[in-house]
């Protein structure tokens, strides 16, 4: 037996916290207890002065009453701190005693274990020629037992387990006191870390005052400055800002993901209530799902103020736009519960009013502020928040496969509907991609700012027109500085003037490309820049053929939407999980590297001409790839 707990040298390790570290806490808390008592006494000393100066009058009475309340609150602090110090000190004493005992056990083990092993080495049958040696070994063993006071190593193991049990008990007692003290001071029903005093006592500063206190003359613009400001606030001050302006803080880079999530979900719930009320006010039952919109009668549509085209994509009235926002909210809500709490989801960005109701949102599966591996999934053509379940479904599939690829580290995958994706009508232009590229670069850069460890392994996974967006973010807005690798799938082109990995400011081993040979988007577009799946581009093409791929010519629409396919455990999803978990160098070993597209020159009696060749088109797709 070798219990694997804590530090210490010798066979048996020390369980529990380091008693010297706990002693440091005790000392600090005792100092703070005295300091708090001193403040309390000085306030009590100032009150008679206040009373004598303001002996008569309404304001004086009110001020004196108020001072009494502050004094009461202040008086709570010293005993609370003292209780915590006492609990920790008791825990420290138990830890110290445990360490002393374990030191003795280690000594006993060092004496007894070799003697016991020597006896055991003779086995059950003693050869006559070994009897003398055995008798000596056995005699030594008996002497060792007598010396250490234990009958066997198993007895020492039992004693060690008892010590570990006592440490656990001491931990539980201390933990119960600390948790009880936290509950005593916590805001009932409030978020973790909020105290009741934060809401009860006056003196909460305004946003402008808090900014000034942190040294900012106006709202900071960089994520790093926002983080610095946020770190300067107490939990109650943060909560006060979040509650006052949830839309602002929920969409501000530099604010931790947990706080952004609270703010955005507050906005989401408030939006949903408002949209439902709009229906109720007009005598129409509010939809609970996006499908319910299709069942509205002409009369109901008239009452709601909708155009009667039969669909809402036109967004040509305020009511149409409101309906789109309602759909955004419903789909966002549904996507947040996609994993049923495993992993926890976070609404990192949410604003249904942007882009004529198509909205902006980002949902993380897993917490990006604590995850080692982070992927940001960028969707393409015709994506919008009212299709968040599709983007979220892709991200969730990648999350699960990535977690399987690297179960020892936390993973977070973000469904990033963070830009105004184009429609079919304007997909051939790069203006939407350029606007989105700026937003993408800023959002990805901010991940490192709020990350606890500061250096997560970040992958951008961009699909379709999203790869043009990511390509421009790499070329123009410094995305390469914030990512470890980039995956482009179903790419119509990387946009701009890039013709190689170098033009994207990446190394060869940072770019991975999934391009199904019959995906219409990868084979027929030409206006959105270079195709990164060509060998000449310099990245690594991974296998992305799907067993359900369509037969025939390389102009298949369905093949454009199979990169995240987890139903067949597709090549592409498996390969992307390798990359997201920082194992891109394993693709070859896993048989996942594909030959790139190329252009061959054919020479005949008529002259020379070029043809595009895709070796993947003739390869038989495979399935069942799981980590």
């Amino acid at each position, binding site marked *: 037996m070798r219990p694997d*707990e804590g530090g210490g040298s010798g066979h048996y390790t020390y369980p529990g916290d380091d008693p010297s570290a706990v002693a440091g806490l005790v000392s600090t808390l005792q100092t*703070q207890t005295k300091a708090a008592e001193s403040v309390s006494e000085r306030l009590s000393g100032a009150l008679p002065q206040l009373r004598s100066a*303001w002996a008569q009058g309404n304001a004086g*009475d009110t001020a004196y009453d*108020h001072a009494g309340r502050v004094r009461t*609150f202040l008086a709570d602090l010293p005993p609370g701190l003292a209780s915590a110090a006492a609990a920790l000190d008791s825990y420290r004493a138990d830890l110290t005693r445990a360490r002393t005992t374990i030191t003795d056990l280690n000594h006993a083990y060092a004496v007894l274990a070799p003697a016991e092993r020597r006896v055991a080495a003779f086995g059950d049958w003693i050869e006559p020629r070994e009897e003398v040696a055995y008798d000596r070994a056995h005699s030594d063993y008996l002497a060792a037992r007598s010396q250490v006071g234990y009958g066997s190593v198993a007895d020492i193991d039992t004693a060690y387990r008892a010590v570990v049990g006592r440490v656990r008990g001491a931990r539980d007692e201390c933990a119960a006191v600390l948790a009880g003290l936290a509950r005593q001071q916590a805001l009932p029903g409030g978020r973790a*870390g909020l105290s009741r005093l934060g809401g009860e006592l006056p*003196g909460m500063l305004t946003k402008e005052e808090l900014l000034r206190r942190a040294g900012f003359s106006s709202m900071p613009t960089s994520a790093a400055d926002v983080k610095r400001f946020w770190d300067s606030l107490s939990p109650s001050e943060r909560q006060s800002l979040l509650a006052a302006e949830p839309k602002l803080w929920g969409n501000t880079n530099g604010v931790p993901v947990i706080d952004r999530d609270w703010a955005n979900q507050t906005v989401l719930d408030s939006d949903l209530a408002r949209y439902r009320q709009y229906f109720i006010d007009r005598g129409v039952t509010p939809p609970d799902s996006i499908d319910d919109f299709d069942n509205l009668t002409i009369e109901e549509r008239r009452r709601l103020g909708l155009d009667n085209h039969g669909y809402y994509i036109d967004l040509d009235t305020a009511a149409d736009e409101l309906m789109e926002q309602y759909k955004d909210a419903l789909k966002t809500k549904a996507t947040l519960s996609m994993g049923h709490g495993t992993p926890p989801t976070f609404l990192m960005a949410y604003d249904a009013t942007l882009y004529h109701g198509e909205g902006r949102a980002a949902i993380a599966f897993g917490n990006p502020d604590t995850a080692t591996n982070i992927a940001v999934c960028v969707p393409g053509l015709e994506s919008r928040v009212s299709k968040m379940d599709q983007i979220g479904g892709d991200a969730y599939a990648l999350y699960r496969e990535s977690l399987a690829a690297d179960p020892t580290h936390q993973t977070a995958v973000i469904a990033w509907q963070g830009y105004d994706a184009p429609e079919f009508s304007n997909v051939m232009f790069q203006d939407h991609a350029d606007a989105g590229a700026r937003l993408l670069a800023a959002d990805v850069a901010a991940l490192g700012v709020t990350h606890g460890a500061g250096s997560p392994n970040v992958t951008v996974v961009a699909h379709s027109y999203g790869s043009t967006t990511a390509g421009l973010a790499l070329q123009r807005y410094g995305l390469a500085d914030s990512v470890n690798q980039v995956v482009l799938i179903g790419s119509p082109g990387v946009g701009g003037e890039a013709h190689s990995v170098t033009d994207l400011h990446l190394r060869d081993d940072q770019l991975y490309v999934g391009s199904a040979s019959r995906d219409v988007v990868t084979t027929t577009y030409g206006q959105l820049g270079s195709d990164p799946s060509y060998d000449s581009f310099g990245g690594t093409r991974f296998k992305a053929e799907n067993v359900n791929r369509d037969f025939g010519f390389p102009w298949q629409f369905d093949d454009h939407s199979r990169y995240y396919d987890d139903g067949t455990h597709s090549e592409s999803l498996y390969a992307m999980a390798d990359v997201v978990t920082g194992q891109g160098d394993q693709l070859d070993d896993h048989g996942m590297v594909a030959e790139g597209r190329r252009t061959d020159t054919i020479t005949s009696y008529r002259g020379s001409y070029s043809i595009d060749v895709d070796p993947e088109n003739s390869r038989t797709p495979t399935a069942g790839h799981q980590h």
Partner: protein
Amino acid sequence: MRDDYEVSTGVLSAAGAAITALTPSVAAVESGIKTQRLPGAEITVAAELGLFRDVWSDATHAVGNALDYFGRAVSDAATAYRVTDEVAAVRFQRMQERLGG
């Protein structure tokens, strides 16, 4: 509403300043609580210590804010009484002069 007043502005101002002056001490207590951390261990009170630390530092911060706010309010009240008294004195002085006193 009461209409009897008795205010000593000098003492009131000093009381306000004394209360405001407590704020840095409370901030120091808050800072001491906020630094409470434990290195990793398998059997540990780190999680409960974190809960305690966050809530109690928040409470202490609120007390500091309240003292600062209250002390300034008292000082401001003293200033307001004094200014009101001075303005009234000047007006009475002018009134007496106009009446030929």
